[in-house]
């Protein structure tokens, strides 16, 4: 688990992007919250890949189809376009090679849904600017030396990476601290400043 679970306001936003009966792979499925939500409300054919063995065992005990594995290493075993949606929620920043992982998501899924904490959020900027220290917030509770989040990015950084990989942004949403969507018509710089989290729907 790479971010505070209570703060997973992005789950519902992600779930709303997925139509019923889809084939879904949740990469970094954690305790299985999203898979369970999708199975209960959308009757999806859901699979999970999770790094922590404890998370996996809990998921399987709850009847979810989850395997232990590493997003950096184990995505290569999945066939091209094997899923309608591949979800990477709050995990991209914890991968060793985010570019490769995103590339794999776009290969395996007809669509990829990626959510991540926005390092361009004003609180983060303020912490660096005023205190000159790496931010520790409710959303990002780790100190710099013990964080699993080794590849933070801002919303703008992510949009650039999508361009580089030839991915089309079909939908994007920024969420504020309360998990509320930030006005749809706002420009990127606004989202990048006020969005605490971002959810992207991608296709290639």
């Amino acid at each position: 688990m790479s971010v505070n679970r209570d703060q997973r306001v992005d789950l519902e936003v992600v779930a709303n992007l997925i139509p019923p009966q889809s084939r879904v792979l949740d990469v970094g499925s954690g305790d299985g919250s999203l898979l369970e939500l999708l199975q209960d409300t959308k009757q999806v054919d859901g699979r999970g890949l999770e790094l922590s063995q404890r998370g996996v065992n809990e998921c399987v005990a709850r009847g979810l189809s989850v395997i232990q594995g590493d997003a950096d290493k184990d995505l290569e075993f999945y066939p091209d376009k094997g899923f309608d949606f591949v979800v990477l929620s709050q995990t991209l920043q914890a991968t060793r090679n985010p570019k490769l992982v995103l590339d794999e998501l776009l290969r395996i899924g007809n669509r990829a849904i990626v959510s991540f904490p926005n390092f361009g959020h004003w609180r983060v900027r303020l912490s660096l600017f005023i205190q000159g220290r790496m931010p520790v917030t409710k959303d990002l509770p780790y100190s710099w030396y013990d964080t699993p989040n080794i590849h933070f990015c801002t919303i703008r950084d992510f949009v650039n990476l999508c361009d580089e990989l030839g991915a089309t942004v079909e939908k994007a949403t920024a969420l504020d601290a309360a998990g509320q969507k930030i006005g749809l018509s706002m420009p990127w710089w606004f989202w990048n400043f006020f969005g605490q989290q971002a959810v992207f729907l991608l296709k290639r």
Partner: protein
Amino acid sequence: MAVLRARKTNNEVDQPSSPVLRFGSDKPLKLDAGTLLSPFQIAYQTYGTLNDARSNAILVCHALTGDQHVASTNPVTGKPGWWEVLIGPGKIIDTNRFFVICSNVIGGCLGSTGPASTNPATDKPYGLDLPIITIRDMVRAQQMLIDHFGIEKLFCVLGGSMGGMQVLEWASSYPERVFSALPIATGARHSSQNIAFHEVGRQAVMADPDWHGGKYFEHGKRPEKGLAVARMAAHITYLSEAALHRKFGRNLQDREALTFGFDADFQIESYLRHQGMTFVDRFDANSYLYMTRSMDYFDLAADHGGRLADAFAGTKTRFCLVSFTSDWLFPTEESRSIVHALNAAGASVSFVEIETDRGHDAFLLDEPELFAAINGFIGSAARARGLSA
């Protein structure tokens, strides 16, 4: 004494106390060795009731020295069934809900045709005249048993170790007949190290002068010493260094000091000798040769052009694999490579690695996390199959 014990095992061999299904010359068993086995018989046990839709059947596949008595008293040892911790009324695999079938594998010695069975052509035990039996042969025979019950699709096939190999073979050979598959502590092939251990065991049996080229029954003997040594060596591989040290350490057996001799000074020696001795009371030496060989020959990828994923192409079966951290006979990597193949085949798969120091044998023991995983997997599969709770 040896002769008496030999006769006792023999009674379970041709006329087992469990139900037995006999196939005449009209229904031979096609063997991978290229010959037909006929007549032949399958001894089995069932627990629970098959529902009207015949959709609640679970096939349990036993391991190397297991048998059909999975959830009821073993007629040879008088001990509880080998998986009674898991299977029975109100247990994780609830026989009030499911119809559980377990059969002795072909090549075994508890009632299914094996090397100790009487060869109708000679009226003597087959001995080494029985063709080599493969995992696929065992599964082919089980399939004929399932046909006999009129079951088109098994709700679940599960088993550990050699039983897990049978599960994988079932899912690969008869995917349309397996709704869910639960291979535990197993591999899609036997590793070089595992073949090596088996070869040590076989050589121990064959080096015993009482083996008589496999014709020991005709000499009124059994290669007990050789088989006991084989079992002792194998038993070490079922445990782990940590568990052995935890249980026995360097503790001495009923003595205060070393005896400066070759008695069983250490508890671990005494324990292994006991394991070897009790094993020869219940198991046929030739059957041990055949069982170990079947595992050595197993290589599911090789049967599919070297690509394991092709063994599961297009499968609709739901899989759950389980491995144990301290299992060095079938390490987690073996299960993981099956998981990767299933991923590549687009299969529905769960995979749980359980932290324990109890080694390979952990699958037979009371392991709460194992039970939780099986419970979750069986439960969700039952919902998908439309089986009421």
